[in-house]
């Protein structure tokens, strides 16, 4: 279902409906099926290393344990940021206007990987122009649902419309000097012995 975002640029609010764009919508999809020699459809399961138990689609679940190995309900957990500060839960971005007052340089945008892309369906011309003429890209925290740690989203405009790219940060690449080389894997035998049988 299409949802509506409100952007606040200066004193003006701009409302726009977002529609998700993905490979399936642009290029089609590929469905893979595993078939056995009887022509029946199969799925991937697991067998325990001792061979005693077979596990199917619904055999596993996951959860959180404290340091004593005791079960914890997810809602009882807190989230810490990299500075070890407790992050409060932030509301969904659909529940409040998004302030467009920060920009991201092209080089910084290139350091992030995209998670999802949305088309801003009926974006007002004034908003599209502001995004197009901006030096760099407008960036803002984006929570599809209420969460403690929002993603970073950027607005990008091109000839086809206005798009919102939701990105994940956390990539850390560094400049490399000559002394920081990475030796190639050496598969050869470490022995100094000269083996005539190898020749």
């Amino acid at each position: 279902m299409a949802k509506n975002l409100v952007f606040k640029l200066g004193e003006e609010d701009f409302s726009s409906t977002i529609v998700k764009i993905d490979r399936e919508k642009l290029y089609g999809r590929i469905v893979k099926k595993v078939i056995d020699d009887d022509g029946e459809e199969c799925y991937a399961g697991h067998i325990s290393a001792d061979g005693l138990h077979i596990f199917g689609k619904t055999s596993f679940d996951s959860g959180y344990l404290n340091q004593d190995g005791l079960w914890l309900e997810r809602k009882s957990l807190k989230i810490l940021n990299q500075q070890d500060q407790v992050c409060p839960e932030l509301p969904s971005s659909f529940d409040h206007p998004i302030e467009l007052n920060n920009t991201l340089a092209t080089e910084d945008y290139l350091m992030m990987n995209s998670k999802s892309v949305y088309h801003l369906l009926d974006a007002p011309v004034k908003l599209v122009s502001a995004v197009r003429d901006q030096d760099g890209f407008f960036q803002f925290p984006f929570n599809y649902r209420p969460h403690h740690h929002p993603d970073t989203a950027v607005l990008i405009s091109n000839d086809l419309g206005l798009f919102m790219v939701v990105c994940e940060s956390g990539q850390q690449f560094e400049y490399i000097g000559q002394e920081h080389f990475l030796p190639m894997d050496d598969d050869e035998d470490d022995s100094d012995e000269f083996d005539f049988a190898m020749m």
Partner: protein
Amino acid sequence: MRLIHFSDHKQRHTRVALLSSPHSETYKYVDDQLAQVEHCRYVKNTLGTDLTALTKENSLEDLSNKLVEGDPELDFEVMGKRLEKSHRIFLKASDNSPAFGVYIQETRYKPNGDLIETRDFEGVSSNINEDAPLVWSNKLIDKVECCRKYVFKRTYQLKHSDGLSFDFLLNIATELAEKSSLLIVGAGKKANQPLITSRNGKPYRGFLEGRIKENEYMLLLHVSNLELKLPETS
């Protein structure tokens, strides 16, 4: 270590390392004492105690009575255990019995849902470290224009293994940084085929970015499999 066999604008080529970014956790879960918690995966049931097995000989109504009277859904031997090691097997969707002689069939559909074809899946090899290097495409695209056109899914960093490959990569990074452009990287003689960085991996278009700081370089290969455009039906 993943290697890429790459050629520069002077047709000199060598193999260098292709690295992913070390992933840094941007947040972590803690308990109410602010002590770190552990995320674990555990066994909930086995094939003998899942809903399909339990409703094989019982109606849902009978099963609900049995659930009140006892614990037919629990296998006390394995339930709650953390499965450290297991092997993948294929099971028949119809009755969860082990399957043999499996093969993968792929069906392609157009964006509107129309069937294109059904065929047996053929694995693909990585094509970034072949005998012939990836050629210098000479196709440069302005950084901002590239960001407005493509959506980048992953980024790799190229790294040298010795003094010679340092000079090789530093020169490429300098060339690209001076032009403030990304180089389109592809497989094939015309560099117009997609890159496959691992066996049976997804095909991507590659864009090489160079940055320079004093006598240090950063050479990044951004890969994309999505354009910033609208579906034809929109």
